[in-house]
């Protein structure tokens, strides 16, 4: 036997099975390309000077791990389609006298060929597109663009490693399949498993229950921290529920349709319902996978786009003014009028030295504490006494800001007066309708509500509910609370003062001013800062401009990874659809042949194919849309963790993502339906 025999045979059989191999190779190429690109960007394109470069790199690295794992699972899946159709061929070889060992050798050469072609092409495309991807990345990051093309040999090596291993596993799996089946089994390979489905009520109902449970979690959770904890639980439940429901629920559904004689025995339902019932069980998993992928794409793209386009909003939430200074004092004495005056004068002086003036000021003193509030206005400040078995306990934990009336009047420009036990309240992100607010261990107040929009408190956190309690005398108001300590023995009340302001300076000058102030605040002496020495205060200063870059870095990276992963997952969904239709087309060929003989017209066939494809195609999309709708509240809560509070923006990005995806999906549907019809109607009308 000639040396080149097996390689030649392998190449031959790849060429002969072009229709099956081409999409598989394309998938491999796509996966290799994406993997290389994301590796490359993680390794080469993140400038060290960028703020948070490390976290961006590790996020990208995580992205590459996700792609690698996904590629492995997905290539196994597509390879199984390939093997199912090829078993016949191997069976024939086997019967014609070729040993299993020789078949394994063919498989080996096939894998080598496919691997070589796809890794080479993938790297080639990856390298040529990496610049484009890098430009996109840098653009998203608001960075500076360079135009030289690089190749990262580390990324190349890593790609070779990862995909080498994946292909090796694929080969071993194929050999295993050939090794453990007889020639006759191989010959029959494709037509095995043609058992009619039995509706499995238990699994169907279980799936529905799990799904409803997940939806319930997603809809009812009120607070972002809890949402973060339960989000992954909900995701797992949705995945499990979708699989259960699609696999057995759809069979159940078709069975119900079949029981409805009036509906079932109609020309356009008869064939499609029965063949759906028949293949749902086998292909329910495929449908569920498409659905999950679609949902993942939609969730990812809608939330990361929302983050990206909402980052300005998030920055402004977190840093309400150009320059934001927070002071913390050791005791209530620090909040005296004298000190407040002096501190403001000091800062104003520093700003004036830089040739600017502080305008649009937010400044007030506050004593802050957090506590758990019940609906009747009772506040428990000691966390040890809170019943934390309640899932949503965090939704009722308020940040209370006691603000002296004088500061409040000045800020809102009003002239309100209050009695000793009266308080004015502004409630944020929560409702409160009671008349009395009473702190356990502290005082009670008769409260009047004030329009919360008029008082800009400038607190960065927008996760938990917040209540501003305006009191005539701060010291009197916090009596009792001031003595409380937490489990670490530290006082619960924080005495703070805010001084946030805008300047007319440009970006660079503003950052410079910020640095100057920072320098003064922390210059002398080393062990006690300027403010501490002077007023007993700790001060922290933040410039919005500086932090904006940080936000861009984080949100930009997330957005970018969102796009890349969406492309990968969409590609995968498309391929699953393609393979599904292709293999079903071959199966249905004979069936439609029979139906034509029995008197079905071409038009009937077309109609029934349409009704079938429509259902099969749009069921996953419908489910994905439903998942997305129920996920909306919980994802919105999660976005709050990123400092983003824009329901309309998120609704918009979600809507647009869904629309774009649906259009794309429909195009794929049209193409696939065409291919399917071509296969099916290719049957000859003869005995």
């Amino acid at each position: 036997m000639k040396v080149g025999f097996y390689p030649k045979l392998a190449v031959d059989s790849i060429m002969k099975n072009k229709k099956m191999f081409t999409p598989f190779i394309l998938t491999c190429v796509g996966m290799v390309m994406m993997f290389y690109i994301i590796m490359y960007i993680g390794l080469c394109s993140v400038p060290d000077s960028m703020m948070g470069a490390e976290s961006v790199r590790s996020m990208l690295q995580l992205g590459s791990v996700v792609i690698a794992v996904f590629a492995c699972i997905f290539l196994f899946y597509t390879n199984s389609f390939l093997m199912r159709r090829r078993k016949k061929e191997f069976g024939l070889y086997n019967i014609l006298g070729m040993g299993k060992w020789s078949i394994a050798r063919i498989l080996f050469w096939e894998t080598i060929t496919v691997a070589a072609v796809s890794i080479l092409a993938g790297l080639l495309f990856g390298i040529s597109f990496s610049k484009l991807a890098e430009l996109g990345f840098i653009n998203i990051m608001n960075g500076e663009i360079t135009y030289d093309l690089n190749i990262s040999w580390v990324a190349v090596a890593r790609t070779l490693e990862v995909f080498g291993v994946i292909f090796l596993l694929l080969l071993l799996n194929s050999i295993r399949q050939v090794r453990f089946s007889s020639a006759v089994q191989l010959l029959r390979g494709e037509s095995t498993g043609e058992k009619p489905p039995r509706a499995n009520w238990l699994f169907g109902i279980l799936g529905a229950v799990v799904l409803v449970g997940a939806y319930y979690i997603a809809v009812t959770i009120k607070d972002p921290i809890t949402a973060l904890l339960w989000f992954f639980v909900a995701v797992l439940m949705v995945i499990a529920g979708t699989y259960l429901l699609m696999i057995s629920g759809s069979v159940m559904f078709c069975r119900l349709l079949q029981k409805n004689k009036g509906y079932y025995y109609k020309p356009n339902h008869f064939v499609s319902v029965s063949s759906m019932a028949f293949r749902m069980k086998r292909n329910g998993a495929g449908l569920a996978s498409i659905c999950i992928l679609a949902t993942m794409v939609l969730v990812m793209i809608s939330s990361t786009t929302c983050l990206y386009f909402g980052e300005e909003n998030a920055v402004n939430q977190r840093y309400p003014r150009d320059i934001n200074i927070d002071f913390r004092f050791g005791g209530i004495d620090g909040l005296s009028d004298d000190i407040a005056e002096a501190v403001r004068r000091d800062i104003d002086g520093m700003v004036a030295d830089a040739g600017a003036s502080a305008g649009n000021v937010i400044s007030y003193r506050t004593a802050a504490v957090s506590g758990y509030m019940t609906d009747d206005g009772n506040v428990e400040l000691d966390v040890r006494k809170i019943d934390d078995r309640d899932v949503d306990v965090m939704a009722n934990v308020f940040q209370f800001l006691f603000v002296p009336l004088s500061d409040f009047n000045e800020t809102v420009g009003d002239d309100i007066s209050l009695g000793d036990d009266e308080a004015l309240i502004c409630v944020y992100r929560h409702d409160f309708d009671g008349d009395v607010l009473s702190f356990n261990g502290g005082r009670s107040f008769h409260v009047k509500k004030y329009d919360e929009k008029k008082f800009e408190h400038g607190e960065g956190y927008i996760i938990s509910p917040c209540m501003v309690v305006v009191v005539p005398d701060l010291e009197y108001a916090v009596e009792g609370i001031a003595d409380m300590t937490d489990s670490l023995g530290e006082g619960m009340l924080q005495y703070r003062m805010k001084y946030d302001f805008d300047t007319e300076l440009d970006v660079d000058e503003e950052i410079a001013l910020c640095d100057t102030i920072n320098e003064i605040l922390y210059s002398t002496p080393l062990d006690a800062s300027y403010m501490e020495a002077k007023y007993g205060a700790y001060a922290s200063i933040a410039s919005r401009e500086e932090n904006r870059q940080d936000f861009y870095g984080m949100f930009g990276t997330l957005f970018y990874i969102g796009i890349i992963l969406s492309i990968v997952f969409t590609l995968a969904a498309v391929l699953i659809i393609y393979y599904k239709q292709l293999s079903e087309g071959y199966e249905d060929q004979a069936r439609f042949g029979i139906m034509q003989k029995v008197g079905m017209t071409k038009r009937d066939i077309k109609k029934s194919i349409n009704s079938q494809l429509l259902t099969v195609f749009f069921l996953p999309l419908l489910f994905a849309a439903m998942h997305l709708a129920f996920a909306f509240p919980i994802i919105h809560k999660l976005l709050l963790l990123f400092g983003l509070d824009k329901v309309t923006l998120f609704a918009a990005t979600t809507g647009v993502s869904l629309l774009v995806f649906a259009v794309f999906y429909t195009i794929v549907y049209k193409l696939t339906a065409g291919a399917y019809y071509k296969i099916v109607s290719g049957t000859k009308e003869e005995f």
Partner: protein
Amino acid sequence: MSILEVKGVRKVYTTRFGGNKVEALRDVSFSVEAGEYVAIMGESGSGKTTLLNILAALDKPSGGTVILDGRDLSKIRESAISAFRRDNLGFVFQEFNLLDTFTLEDNIYLPLVLSGTGHREMKERLAPIAAKLGISELLKKYPYEVSCGQKQRAAVARAMITSPKLILADEPTGALDSKSTDELLSMFSEVNALGQTILMVTHSVKAASSANRVLFIKDGEVFHQIYRGDDTNDGLYQKISDTLTLLATGGKTA
């Protein structure tokens, strides 16, 4: 009255590049009376299948006419041909051609569903046929759950349920064991006795010997025919064998 009239049917196949012409049917003429049970015999390549395709309106003859129940098949529009086939012809195939996605019952209903019959009427039509064919108990089963003989009986039920003018059977016993073959043939005879016209293509002498008339095709022409007359199945069997021997040895019979 003739239910089927075949006059001078010719079928010429042309190879793809128009080079060679193969004459599958040269000049076939015969007629089938209502209520007849006719078998067509011939060796592989004699043009049996081509003839059956033409009779089933699946293929068009190159020349000649086929008249089914007074209608010329070549005059029926392409769009109406499927419906015509569905309403007037019943088919029984060698490999059953049951759909594995349907229960036997639904398989039998298929032609009726396609012509839009209501469920109640379908049920009423099926009951007597299923009883006669002895598959009443099997209706809810899927094809893979029953034996070949039972599958073929379901296929016969499917052919009969539209009360077609003519049942065309293509080698119906080809995939059956001898016991199932006997059962199927006696079923055909019974159905025929009730007035159903049957045309069967076969090369099994046994199958042919259950018919009332046997046509022999050779080289694209009707070469000979035998009437049962008063013969028993065995007597007809003997006659057919003799004829086949003659055909094979090239002798001439009038």
